Every structure is written in C-alpha cells, then in structure tokens.
C-alpha cells in the first residue's frame, strides 16, 4: 500500500530502484488519490490518462507547455490550446523518465497569491479546504501537500513558489534567475519568471533541481550553475553566518504566530551552530513591492499581447472588423487580474510616463540588488518569514487586490534581485503551516539546500496535513 500523503519522491525513487514497486503502480496510486481528493481540492486542471516514463511521476503547473497535453495558464483565452512542442523543463522531466500526472491549477497567467484568480475555479488548501493554498502555484502545492503528486513544478515571479509552499507546509525553491530554462513557460514577467520545485523535503527539491536546471540554447537568459546540485547531508549549521534583515522580519501585517514560529526557528539555527546577526534592507522592502508592480505588469502587457484570437486559443464570434475581434476576444478571454495588470503595465510604459514609472523602477531594482549584495558581504544567507500570514480564507482578500499584493511583500525583494530563495516549513500557527524563507546570493542553491536540510531535520515538521493523517 503506497501512502501518497507520506511518501517522498526520494523514497519513491528508492522503491523503484529496489523494484519494490513499479512506476505504473506509483502512478496508479496517485491517480487514485486524485480521484478521491481532487474533487474537493481542485488542484488539477487536467489529469493525463497515460504517460510514459519509468520514474517518479510528477505534476506540472499549467504554465509549463506540454506537447499534446492542454496548457491553459488557467485562462479561458487559452481554452482548447494544445501545444505542438514541449517546454524545456517538460522535456527534462520526460528525459528523466518522470511520467506526467497532470497539469495543476494556478492564478490566471500566474497573476495572484491565492489561486482564486484561476479562470477555472479556485484550488483549496489540503490543511483546511476553507482556506487558499496560496498562489500562484497553488495547484502544484495543494497536489503535493494533499498526496496527489509526489512532487511538482511551479513557477515563481513574485513569490509564486515560495508563498504556496509556505501556506501548504512544503519546501519550495525559487532558483537563481537564469538557472532553469523558461523556454515553453507561458510568460508573465520575463525578467522575473523562474520555474522551480515544490516538494515535501529539501532533498526532493535538490533531486528535482538536478533534473531541470542548466543552460538551454533555446533561452538566451540561461546559464550553467557554477557547481552541480548536490544532495544535502549535513545536519548542523556550523560556520554559517545567517543575517536577519530587520525590515523583512518586522513587516507590516505580520501575524504574531508567524513571527513566533520564525523566531523559534532562528534560535534553533543558532543551536545548530549558525552565527546569527541582524542586517538591514530598508529600501528593498520599502520600494520592492511598488517596483515589482510596475515592472511585472509592464512586461506582462507585452507578453499577453499575443492572445489576439488570430492563431490559437479562444476567438470571439464577431461580425465586425479586426479591432472588434481583438477587443471581444480579449474581453471574453481574460479575467479581471490580467486585465488589471495589462492596463497598469500599458500605462507604465506609455510615452511621457515611461521614465517616471518603468524607467524609475528599473533604477530601484539596481538599488535593491546593491542592498542585497551589501548584506551578503557579512552573511552567507538571510532569513525571514516567507509570508506574513498563514493560509487565509477563500474570498478574504479576493475583493481587495492591494491586500492580496501584500502577501508577497517578503518574497518580492529577493526576486527583484534575481536571487534564489528556499521556503521550508518551520512550524504551525493556528494549526496552519508557517514558512521560513532562506535567501542566498546568486547560484547559492547548494548552500540553501544544506541549511534547509539541517533545519528541516531539526524542526521535524510533519508535512502531512493534520486532518488527513
């Protein structure tokens, strides 16, 4: 009997290697869990009927293009679109023999922090179905936390892997920008989008990074990691200098339970041998969010221009001219959040406003990079909560975009600097998981994994949602 809620991908790989179970049996077990629990969770937008591969099955966020398998980015405007090619990461998974379980739900075009912005209905948090799983990779997070997939890939622009990992009690890595190919990832904000793993353990995260990372000739912004990804072994943090950026740990709207959990985690890190000290990121935190909400929508406004009803996806039925075809198609196909961001971005790039908005935001981005670089002169890693809150209730922030945007206030600053970040569960608050964000310099994935693994052992967090144990 395979316990899909408990089984890690690493353990599953062990079972396969020892031939105690076949890949088909594994896939069958996860399909059974999907059939049982997905009607409640709605983690998947599409479940495959068959898939090739002899490895540990995987779920992919529905921005990841899969040849012959519908890919919608949770948008009605991509209704009926079946890609004719594989994204590089999907091809990497195929090459590694990972059968595709299905495509997971998200906020439309990865724009959101709760998965409520999906064009096909929200996903629910396996810890509490009245609550959101976070977003935008909420479907991938709910699938792994709910035992509907051993591991999954998400994508992270402003925090879309780290924040749902935090809200669902999982490990989520946002890799260094440029280490995982974006070829075939439905684009939201090209200078920020990055694919990464959502897993039950840090070692699973490292295993999946080994599969997906590396330079890709189809993506000019990729580079090779300077060192190959290693599976972490160490259980202490001796010699590690951990910085606590005050502004990230005392942010507005931080729940006391979250703060307590994170403070306890930091004390534990000291017990494990880390040197802990305070540092400052004043401008990154003050301006990061504003800067993000200029750059990301600006890039999105161009990236979403291709959805015009001419070549693929939804096309409105109109009697009028070309302009009417464009307008009706886009009016019917896009939900409120993409429309909001297209308008914001178009405005930020308009003649006469470019310098004040987009141009200024790019300059601030440089300031943020410099501020982080300065902090990394004194510290190896920085630590903060991943999200200021635990999972919130469905509908709680849906009517207030600004409140929703603040969910990402702690994940956005390092993303703006292109830095890798790992979220690991560090405890519970009100019975819901709290995530600890570890931020490292560019290409510090191995350091993040080593620290994350040692802390994970010390926390002994049980990633199976209490109500499902």
């Amino acid at each position, binding site marked *: 009997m395979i316990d899909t809620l408990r089984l890690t991908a690493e353990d599953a790989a062990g079972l396969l290697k020892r031939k105690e179970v076949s890949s088909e049996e594994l896939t069958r077990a996860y399909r059974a869990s999907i059939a049982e629990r997905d009607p409640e969770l709605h983690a998947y937008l599409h479940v495959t009927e068959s898939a090739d591969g002899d490895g540990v099955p995987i779920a992919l966020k529905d*921005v990841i*293009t899969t040849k012959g398998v519908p*890919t919608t*980015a949770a948008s009605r405007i*991509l209704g009926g*679109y079946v*890609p*004719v*090619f594989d*994204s590089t990461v999907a091809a990497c998974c195929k090459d590694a023999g990972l059968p595709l379980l299905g495509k997971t739900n998200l906020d439309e075009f990865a724009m959101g922090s709760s998965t409520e912005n999906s064009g096909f209905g929200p996903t629910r948090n396996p810890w509490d179905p009245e609550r959101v799983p976070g977003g935008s990779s909420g479907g991938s997070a709910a699938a792994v936390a709910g035992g509907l997939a051993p591991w999954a890939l998400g994508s992270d622009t402003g925090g879309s892997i780290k924040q749902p990992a935090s809200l669902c009690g999982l490990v989520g890595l946002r890799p260094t920008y440029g280490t995982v190919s*974006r*070829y*075939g*990832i*439905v*684009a939201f*904000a*090209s*200078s920020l989008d990055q694919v990464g793993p959502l897993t039950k353990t840090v070692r699973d995260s490292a295993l999946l990074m080994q599969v997906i990372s590396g330079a890709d*000739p*189809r*993506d*000019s*912004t990729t580079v090779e990691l300077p060192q190959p990804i290693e599976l972490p072994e160490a259980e202490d943090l001796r010699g590690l200098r951990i910085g606590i950026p005050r502004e990230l740990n005392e942010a507005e709207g931080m729940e006391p339970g979250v703060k307590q959990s994170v403070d306890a985690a930091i004390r534990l890190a000291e017990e494990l041998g880390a040197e802990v000290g305070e540092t400052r990121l004043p401008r990154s935190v003050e301006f990061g969010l504003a800067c993000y909400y200029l750059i990301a929508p*600006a*890039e999105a*406004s*161009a990236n*979403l*221009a*291709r959805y*015009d009803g*001419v*070549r*693929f996806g939804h096309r409105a039925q109109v009697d009028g001219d*070309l302009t009417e075809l*464009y307008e009706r198609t886009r009016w019917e196909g896009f939900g409120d959040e993409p429309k909001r961001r297209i308008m914001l971005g*178009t405005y930020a*790039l*308009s*003649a006469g406003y*470019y310098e004040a908005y*987009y141009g200024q935001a790019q300059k601030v981005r440089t300031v943020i990079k410099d501020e982080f670089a300065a902090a990394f002169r004194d510290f190896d890693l920085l630590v903060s909560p991943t999200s200021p809150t635990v999972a919130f209730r469905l509908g709680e922030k849906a009517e207030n975009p600004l409140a929703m945007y603040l969910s990402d206030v702690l994940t956005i600053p390092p993303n703006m600097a292109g830095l890798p970040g790992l979220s690991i569960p560090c405890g519970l608050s009100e019975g819901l998981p709290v995530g600890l964000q570890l931020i490292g310099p560019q290409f510090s994935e191995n350091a993040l994994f080593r620290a994350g693994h040692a802390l994970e052992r010390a926390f002994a967090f049980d990633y199976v949602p209490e109500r499902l144990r």
Partner: protein
Amino acid sequence: MTGWEPVVGLEIHIQLKTQTKMFCRCENVWGEGPNTRTCPVCLAHPGTLPVPNGRAIEWAVKLGLALGCEVAERSVFHRKNYFYPDLPKGYQISQYDEPLCTAGRFAVPGSGGDHEIGIVRAHLEEDAAKTVHVGGKAGRISGAAHSLVDFNRGGTPLVEIVTEPDLHSPEEARRFLQLLRQTVVELGISDAEMEKGSLRCDANVSVRRQGEEGLRTKTELKNMNSFKFVGDGIAAEVARQIEVYESGGEVGQETLHFDPASGRISSLRSKEEAHDYRYFPEPDLVPVEPPAALVERMRAEIGELPAARIRRLEGELDFDLSYGLVASGRDELYERVPGERRAVANVVMNQLAATGAHPGRVNAEELGKLIEARDRIPRATFDEALTAAGEPGFTAERYLAEEAVTDASELDPVIERILAANGSQVAAYRSGKEGLLGFFVGQVMRETQGKANPKVVNERLRERLGA
C-alpha cells in the same frame, strides 16, 4: 522649384539572406508556399523565446562598418508594441536607444564631387509577416473582404538604416539608394531587390527656402518599390509641398503613398493618430556585445566601397560612365578587361549589358581582344561574340577570324549598285543634304550582311558621292 531646396532623409530596410530567421531556426527563404516556413517561435506560441541569429549580428556589423558607423560595444534589443495580425507576438523585436551601429557617413559621388550623407543609425530587427488583403482594390486593406497572413516572412532578419536629412534632390536620393544597394549586394548579405521587398525605402520629405536654416514639417512617403519610383515619388512630393507653400498653405505631418501609375500622392494616415509603441528593453534577450575581434574580422571583409571606386574610375572616364559601371556592379569586369578604356567602358556598360551576360563569368582577356578588333570584324559577328562572352570556354579567336570586308574592289560594285538605284537621294546629297550619308552606309551594310567595314564604306561613299 526655383528658390526652394528639397530636404530628404531615407529610412531603408534590408532583409538579410541568412540561412535561418532572426530569432528562430526556420529557413529564411523567399517564394515558398504560404506558411510552410514557420515554427512555434515565429508564430509566437505561448512560452516560446527568441534566440538571436549570430550571423545576422555579424552581417549587421559589417553593413554598419561599410556605412562608416561606429559599432556599439553594447547594444540592446527592445520590444516595439502594437497590434496587427502580421505581428504574432503583438510586439516587434527591434532596437531603440541602443542600436548596434550609429553615427556613420556614406559618400555619394556626383559630377560636382562627393556628398557625404550622414547615417543616424543602422539597427537589427525582425520583419513582420506578409498580409494579403483579398477582395479590395489593389491589395489595399480598405474595402478588402478578408485578409490572409503568410508567416514565412515573419522573423526575417532586417537591418533598418536611417539617414540624416542630408539629401537635397530626388536624383541624389536615388543615387544614394543605388550605391547603398550595390554595397549590400557586394557584401553578400542581401539580395536587396526592391521588387521582392528585400530592399524597402521610405522617405522623409520637406522643403525650405534656399538659404533657410532649420527644417520645416516633413511628410513620410511609404514603400516606393523601385529606384525610379523613389526618385519620382520624392520629386512629386517636393513639387506638391512647394505648391502648398507658394499658395499660402501649410504642409501637415502625414504619411503618404505614391502611386507610380498616376504619379499622384495620397494620404495613408495622419500622424496625429500615431502609435505609442511603448518601447522597453526585451527581457528575453541579453545585450549584444560584439567582441572587438569580430568587428575587426568584419572590417577586413569589406572591399573598396563604390564611392571610392567611382572616384578612381573618374581618372580615366567621365562621371556618368564611372557611376554607371560601379552602380551596376560592372566596374569589376571593366577593370579586368584590357584595352582602350573608353571603348571598354562603353562595351561593358552598354552592348555587353544588353546581351544579359553575367559580368562575373566573362573572360576578360578574350573580351579585350574582341573589343580591340571591333572595327575590323563584322558588326553582326561582334554582337554574336558578345552574346557568347559569358559562356564557359569562350574565346575570341573564332570571331576574330571573320575579318570585315575592307577590300575596295569587293565593295565598289555594291556601292555602284546602290547609288544607281537611289538616284534622287544621290541628287539630294550632292545638293547639300550630307546627312544622307548614313542612309547609304546602311544600305551597303545591309547588302553585305553586316560584313563590310563601316570605316572603309564611309570613305568609299564619300569619294564616289563627291565626284
């Protein structure tokens, strides 16, 4: 026209003939069936990314150097945003404030000396797809029942060249464009054929009073698809603007279309509804930083430029012949052919060109022998030999054997026959109409099937008619 000076700047687009497209690896080829050279990247399927064509960057550098430009150490691609079905991404990847090549000068020789035309920039971008409007008038969108898009052309590497408003006559604009085309063809980077659209030209036109400082409002003349139309279009627009000013009006900023059939200028759209293209740096691409070694390698591959060659040829020929040889790419053959320079130039430029023989395939030594002997051999034989001059293994020998008839004893009976048969013309000649000599020469040439030596015939006729 008197008292007014045309001020013209050109915007030229040149399709590079790289094997593959600018940002994907689709074959870059003209004339294939619609939508047979496409892929997810050039159709802008979700998630696809551009990867720049290294050869296109090299060639754009090369062209920039030939235009005397500075090559940027760091150059950036931008997104130019607008909606149109020929633009599948909804933006064109182009360059904006950090183009690959800037600040060049390109000399246009004229009979009165060189005129240096400033090159503002030469940048790289991707071509749009081709839209075909069906059911409308002359392929125009207005009145069309529907439109079809052929994405084969979409993503073709394109160099855009923008000149300073340094051109001061339609003729000079035409000459600039011809020499630019010749340069591009010689660099081997484009077919640069206007009728196929691999060379396209828009002109920014204004006029001002002779001696006036500053620039008046300009209009943009779109897509004139031959050298002649570029000259004619600019001339028509210059005349229109002068007329507007002289009748007390003002020229408005607008985009215009030149109809070569009627010679008329019509308005395409007013600039007031101009697009805001919302340029921003293309985040899917890293900056282009051409290494110094590459720039030097490209520089070394550039031969002597047309203007320099025209100036050199002017040492032995007049301007028109020098220009004509260089602008038509025939000067290389001209320089290889031995013999009296003017005679060689005339044959290469006119008679040989008329035969359609490819100048690069002509055996220059043999052609030289032929030209040297052209007064001694029959005219028909000479023409026949020129036609064969481009064929492999051509030698002059066989044609030189056919010496023209120079023997007076052979020609005199023919001359006698012709004078006898044209008594009234003979009388007219003798009463002073000496222009009739040509008539008699023609008759003799016809009678001898072109084999008579025209020089000898002339002499004999003069002698006989003078008697």
